[in-house]
C-alpha cells in the first residue's frame, strides 16, 4: 500500500518583505498505481507540492503521510534514505551526473543502495533497453540529446522499482515527438509495474496521458478529476 496523504499543507516563501504563497491548505490523497498530472499556471505551487511530497523541502505546516510514515517529520538523513529507496525523480533538465556515462548514471543509485555489481549492470542494461537507448550506454550526458537524457533520467528513476516517481515538467525541454515517447514510456511503466506517477506540467498533451488531473492555482487545488487517458501503448 503506497498511498500518499497530504493534510492541510501550507508553505510560504519570503522574498524581501513579500510573503509568497507556495501551498495553501492542500489536502490530497494519491493511491498506489495512480497516474496523476498536476497542472496550473506558473507559480501555482506544482513544484512546491512535488518537493514537499518528495521530501526535498519541508512544509511550514500540515502533514505528509507515505505508507504511514510522517515524511514531513523525518530528519535529513532518513529523508535521503527514503528518497533513495522509494522515490524516483525526474526534473526538467540537468538530471544526470555529467562525468558518468548513461549506464553509470543509471547504476549510480543502485550502487548507493548496495546492489551487487553484476545485478545492477544487468538491470541498468535492461532498463536502458526498455527506454530505447540501446547502444548508448557508454555515452556521457553531453553526447546525448535532450530527449535521450530525459530517458536516461527516467531509466534511473525507475530502475530499482520505486513506489513513486515524481516528475517536474519532464517534457519542457523536449520536442513533440520526444515528449510523446516519454509520456508513453511513463504510461507503460505505470501499467506494467504499478508505479505511482505524479507529473507536474503545463503541457496539454502531457495531461492527456493522465488518469487523474489535478489543477492548482495560487497554491490551492481548484479541481481534481479522473479522466480517460490516451493509451500508453500507442506511439
Amino acid at each position, binding site marked *: 500500500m503506497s498511498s500518499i496523504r497530504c493534510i492541510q499543507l501550507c508553505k510560504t516563501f519570503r522574498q524581501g518583505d513579500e510573503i509568497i504563497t507556495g501551498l495553501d491548505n492542500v489536502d490530497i490523497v494519491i493511491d498506489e498505481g495512480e497516474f496523476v498530472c498536476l497542472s496550473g499556471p506558473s507559480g501555482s505551487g506544482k513544484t512546491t507540492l512535488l*518537493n514537499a511530497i*518528495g521530501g*526535498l*523541502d519541508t512544509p511550514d505546516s500540515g502533514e505528509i503521510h*507515505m*505508507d504511514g*510514515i510522517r515524511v514531513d517529520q523525518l530528519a*535529513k*538523513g*532518513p529523508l*535521503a*534514505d*527514503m*528518497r*533513495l*529507496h*522509494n*522515490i524516483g*525523480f525526474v*526534473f526538467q533538465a*540537468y*538530471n*544526470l*551526473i*555529467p*562525468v*558518468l556515462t548513461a549506464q*553509470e548514471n543509471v*547504476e*549510480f*543509485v543502485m*550502487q*548507493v*543502495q*548496495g546492489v551487487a555489481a553484476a545485478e545492477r549492470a544487468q538491470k541498468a542494461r535492461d532498463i536502458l533497453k526498455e527506454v530505447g537507448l540501446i547502444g548508448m550506454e557508454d555515452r556521457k550526458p553531453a553526447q546525448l540529446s535532450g530527449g535521450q537524457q530525459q530517458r536516461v533520467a527516467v531509466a*534511473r528513476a525507475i530502475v530499482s522499482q520505486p*513506489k513513486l516517481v515524481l516528475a517536474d515538467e519532464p517534457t519542457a525541454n523536449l520536442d513533440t515527438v520526444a515528449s510523446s515517447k516519454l509520456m508513453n514510456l511513463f504510461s507503460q511503466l505505470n501499467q506494467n509495474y504499478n508505479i505511482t506517477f505524479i507529473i507536474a506540467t503545463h503541457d496539454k498533451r502531457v495531461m492527456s496521458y493522465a488518469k487523474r488531473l489535478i489543477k492548482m492555482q495560487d497554491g490551492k487545488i481548484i479541481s481534481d478529476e479522473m479522466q480517460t487517458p490516451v493509451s500508453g501503448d500507442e506511439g
Partner: protein
Amino acid sequence: MKGIGTINLPFRAMLVLSWRNLWRNHRRTMIMLAAISVGVWAMIFMTALMRGMVDDMLRQGIQNLPGHIQIHHPDFRNDPSIVNSIDAPSGDLLNALNDPSTKAWSTRIKVPAIIASERETRGINLLGIEPEAETIISGIGGQIIEGRFLLDRHDKGLVIGAKLAERLETRLGKRVVVISQDPENNIAERGFKVVGIYKAKMPGLEEFNVYAALGTLQTLLKIGNQISEITIVDDDFRDIEVLYQNIKQATPENLEIKAWYELDAYLKYMLNMMDGFVLVWVIIIFLALSFGLVNTLVMAVFERVREIGLIQALGMRPGMIVYQILLESLLLLLIGLGIGNLLAIITVKPLESGLDISIVAEGLAMMGASSMLYPSLTASDMILANTVVIILGILTSILPAWRAAKLDPVQAINST
C-alpha cells in the same frame, strides 16, 4: 518502505565520481598537483639537508664523548679523578662487550693533568687509550697530521694537538713532561716524547686532549689494570637501544652506564630541536598549500552546486556528500604526495655522497659541522611529512565538503 536506516558507503561509486570530477578541470587540478608536489618536495628536501647537518653535528659530538654508550664509576662524571676508577671489564660484561653485535668497544683512562714543555705549562685532559679500538670510536688515529699515532697499549709516546704544540712552543720529536696524581695523592710525573700531532675538527679539543697508551698511563698512575671508562659504539647512533639494554643487563650494579643522549644533554637537545624543526617546517609549508587546497575545493563545489543538489535529491545523505568531496581531496593529496616524494628521492639520493658547502660553512665549523653536507633522507621524516599533509589536508577539506553537504537540494537544483 524498504531500506531505511541502512547506511553503506559505496566506495567504488564514490571513487569513480571523485576521480572523474578531479579531472574535469584539468588546469586547476594540474596546478594544484604541482603546488602539492613542490611543497612536499621542499618539505622533504629541506628536512634532509637539515637532518644531514644535524646528524653530522651529532656524530661529531658523539665522537668527542666518545662513543654511544659509556660505563663509569658512579662518581666519575661528577669528579673525574683517578680515585673514581673502575676495574677492567670481566665476566658477563666482558662477554657482552665481545658479542658480535657490539661494533667496537674500548677502555680508557681520563684524568686531569699538567703538561710542560721547556717554555710553557698547560692544563690538559690526559687520555690513556687502546690505539686500535680508540680510532674506531673517536677517529683520532685518522687525524694525525705529523708523526705517527700510538702503536699499542704500551707505546711510550705522546700524541698532542697542533694547537697545543703551538701553545707549548714544542714540536714533533721533542720531550714534554706530564704531571698528574696517583690514587694516594702522590705526584705522578713522566717525560714523554711527542710522537704524533693531530688536528681535530673542533679546535677546542686540539688544545685539550692529549693521548698516551693505556698501559703506560696505568703504570704511571699506579692503578694496576684499572681504567676510567669503557666506551662502546653501535652501527647507528640513532638505533642503539638493543645494544644499550643488552650491555646494561651485563653491567655490575655498582657501575653507571649511560647512552650518548644521557651523557650530553646538548646533543639530546639538538636532536629534539631538529625533530621539532621538521614538524614546524612541514606545517608551515602545509599552511601555504592549504590555501590553494581549500580554494580548489571551494571552486569545485561552487561549480557543481546543481549536481550536488541532484545527488542529494537522488537520496545521497549529507554525510555521503562530505565523503565524496573528501575522497576527491584525498586523491589529489595522494597524487601530489606521490610526485613530491619521488622528486625528493630523486634529488636527495645523488647528494647523499656529500655536498661541498665550504663557502658558507666557515662559521658552522665552530659548532662542530664539517664543510661537507651529507643530506639524510630518513624514513621517519618522510612518514612525518606525508602524515602531516594527509591529516591536515583532510582536516582543511572538511569545511568545503561540509558546505557542500549543507546545500539545500531544491535551491541547488534551481541554481544556474
